[in-house]
């Protein structure tokens, strides 16, 4: 392999993880982390211009994953910037020790590496390994505070996610077994591009079984109901930058893996249609997430359930299929990732300022801390899908695609979205408006990442560049 951007995408996080682990002192590690994340983002950007290497046995660069590599390295970079001030305060208050902080930063780079590997792999086995690596690193990061609650959450996450990745591996083995008689034993039968090219000659019954396992396995990581149980705990108990990474990146990467598997089945008419399964699970997750928003008392849990709702919506859109729904699904994936991590940046600052995550102990944030208060208001307006923010566009497209294809399904879909809007504003009212409550610690915050994310979401709602639209359309066509 020549020294293209792909090599750098793998090398930078891998080297940075080692460098951080070897560095003396923990102060510097936060900056090395942010710097390495920035370099990774630059390498990802260069993918847009560089000549694409031909798909090999391990690496694939196409329109679909390029856009996600850029998005994910961008969010990883902004989160690492947010993280610098966040962890500094945590260190001051003694919630983490310097040694654990260094571990945290090294793992952050390992996590970036695993995301990039999962996205760029052309081999279903390697993709699985990458997602396992992502699981392992996030488990440690969720438990890094070592409080009783954090360890409980990490344990629960670990057990459920392990079962999920075990099921996904079983599905991967089944895909191989379906391919082996046709494509011969060995590496070829796991190469994704070859599999898709010859999908029509594979045994459909076996692929059906494989897809069910892959859906359940990767669905656990996406947080689809009823496999979501780890998600709220892991979101609530870990450090907030990790919450942002979980919601904004991990869920997306798992969904990406599932979409790759769906594309495999799409080429075979006799195989089971993945659509209805995904529509069903997506819709149930959406409704479940929306209803669960009402009685949350913990601010991070609130937005964790909102992530379940949105991942359900996206899965629904891809299950529906067709150029418009796929386009909307992709747009929603990108915007949800930006918005949700932006919200979690605000939430991280809020929980540090207030010294708690309990919604009951917050109030009047817009008057005491206007910047993060209003940031949260805009973020919630965006995530609820209000115009002119970007998510309105994608939700509107999903609803109109549903009306065109399956009008009856639009009813529960719109109901779910409205329920979520109601719940979000009810909760927002308690947090951001009214009488100021609770303490008001002086905390140094990084506002730039939050403003940047929300700004991008606003711009996307007002004006989507034509090249981006064309790009998404091409990917939507690829998805079938």
């Amino acid at each position: 392999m020549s020294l293209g951007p792909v090599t750098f995408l793998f090398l930078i996080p891998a080297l940075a993880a080692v460098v951080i682990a070897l560095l003396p002192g923990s102060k510097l590690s936060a900056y090395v982390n942010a710097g390495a994340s920035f370099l990774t983002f630059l390498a990802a950007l260069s993918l847009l211009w560089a000549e694409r290497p031909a798909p090999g046995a391990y690496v694939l660069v196409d329109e679909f994953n390029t856009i996600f590599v850029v998005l994910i390295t961008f969010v990883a970079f902004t989160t690492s910037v947010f993280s610098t001030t966040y962890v500094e305060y945590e260190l001051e208050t003694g919630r983490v020790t310097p040694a654990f902080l260094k571990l945290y930063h090294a793992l952050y780079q390992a996590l970036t590496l695993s995301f990039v590997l999962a996205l760029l792999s052309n081999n279903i086995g390697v993709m699985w390994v990458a997602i396992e690596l992502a699981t392992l690193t996030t488990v440690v990061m969720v438990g890094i505070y070592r409080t009783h609650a954090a360890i409980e959450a990490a344990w629960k996450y670990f057990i459920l996610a392990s079962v999920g990745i075990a099921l996904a591996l079983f599905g991967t083995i089944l895909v191989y077994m379906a391919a082996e008689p046709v494509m011969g034993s060995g590496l070829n039968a796991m190469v994704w591009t070859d599999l898709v090219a010859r999908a029509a000659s594979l045994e459909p019954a076996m692929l059906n079984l494989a897809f069910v396992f892959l859906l359940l396995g990767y669905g656990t990581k996406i947080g689809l109901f009823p496999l979501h149980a780890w998600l709220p705990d892991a979101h609530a108990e870990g450090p907030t930058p990790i919450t942002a990474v979980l919601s904004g990146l991990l869920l997306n990467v798992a969904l990406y893996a599932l979409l790759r598997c769906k594309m495999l089945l799409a080429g075979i008419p006799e195989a089971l249609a993945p659509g209805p399964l995904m529509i069903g699970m997506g819709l149930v997750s959406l409704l479940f997430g929306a209803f669960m928003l009402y009685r949350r008392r913990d601010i991070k849990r609130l937005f964790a359930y909102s992530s379940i709702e949105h991942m359900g919506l996206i899965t629904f859109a891809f299950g529906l299929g067709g150029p418009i729904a796929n386009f909307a699904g992709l747009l929603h994936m990108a915007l949800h990732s930006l918005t949700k991590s932006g919200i979690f940046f605000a939430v991280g600052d809020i929980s540090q300022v207030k010294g708690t995550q309990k919604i009951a102990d917050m109030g009047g944030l817009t008057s005491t801390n206007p910047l993060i208060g209003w940031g949260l208001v805009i973020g919630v307006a965006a995530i609820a899908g209000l115009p002119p923010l970007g998510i309105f566009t994608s939700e509107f497209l999903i609803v109109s695609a549903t009306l065109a294809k399956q009008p009856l399904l639009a009813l529960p879909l719109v109901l779910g979205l409205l329920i979520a809007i109601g719940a979000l504003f009810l909760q927002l009212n308690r947090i951001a408006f009214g009488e100021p409550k609770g303490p008001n610690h002086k905390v140094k915050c990084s506002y730039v990442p939050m403003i940047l994310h929300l700004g991008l979401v606003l711009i996307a709602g007002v004006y989507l560049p034509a090249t981006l639209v064309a790009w998404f359309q091409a990917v939507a066509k690829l998805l079938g």
Partner: protein
Amino acid sequence: MQNLNFDIAHFLAGSLVLVSFMLLYQDRLYALLNVYALHAVVLALSVAWQAYIQDAPQLYITAAIALLFKAIVIPVALHRMIVKLGIQREIETVGGIGLTMLLGMGLVALAMVVTLRATEGAGLLAREDLAFALAVVLLGLLMMVTRRNAVSQVVGFMSLENGLVLAATGAKGMPLVVEISVAFSVLIAFIVIGIFLFRIRERFDTVDVAALDRYRGEHG
């Protein structure tokens, strides 16, 4: 000779399912660890046999990992940990043993029906192996669901993982099997180290999963 090869592979894979059932009715942690070691030995034999009949020397590595790491290192480490951390040694189950066994039988039947129907195109040996492997995976899941102690949940997960290795080695010439079995060993080592590093003593002490709800921050 072909028949004998098949019969031995079949016998070993079937034994793995049988040992999975033995895991289900253990009510002492030490006994559970011993049975798990047996599970790993049977897996090692099965993988080694596959390596021999498929003429795939790299699978001997997987077999060696199973034998050394899973059958010896992990049980010994967990054993010492139980002593050192003073973890309660009885296993608390959800629902009775009888019910669990019945469910287990149902799951094995399900595994047979599902895989044998779906895999008509594959070779006979691969099909049978896959059916047994799915049975072991499902029994492992059942064990994780019906146990309350964290250590027995871990053992359930490890037996599930043995089922996956069985499936992977049964698929003829599957690449990355060795890598995957190494990755899984890392995962397991991770849990065991995690238990130590985080000293989740309380987690292992309180048998009550309901304690989880208290930490959700949802109750005041």
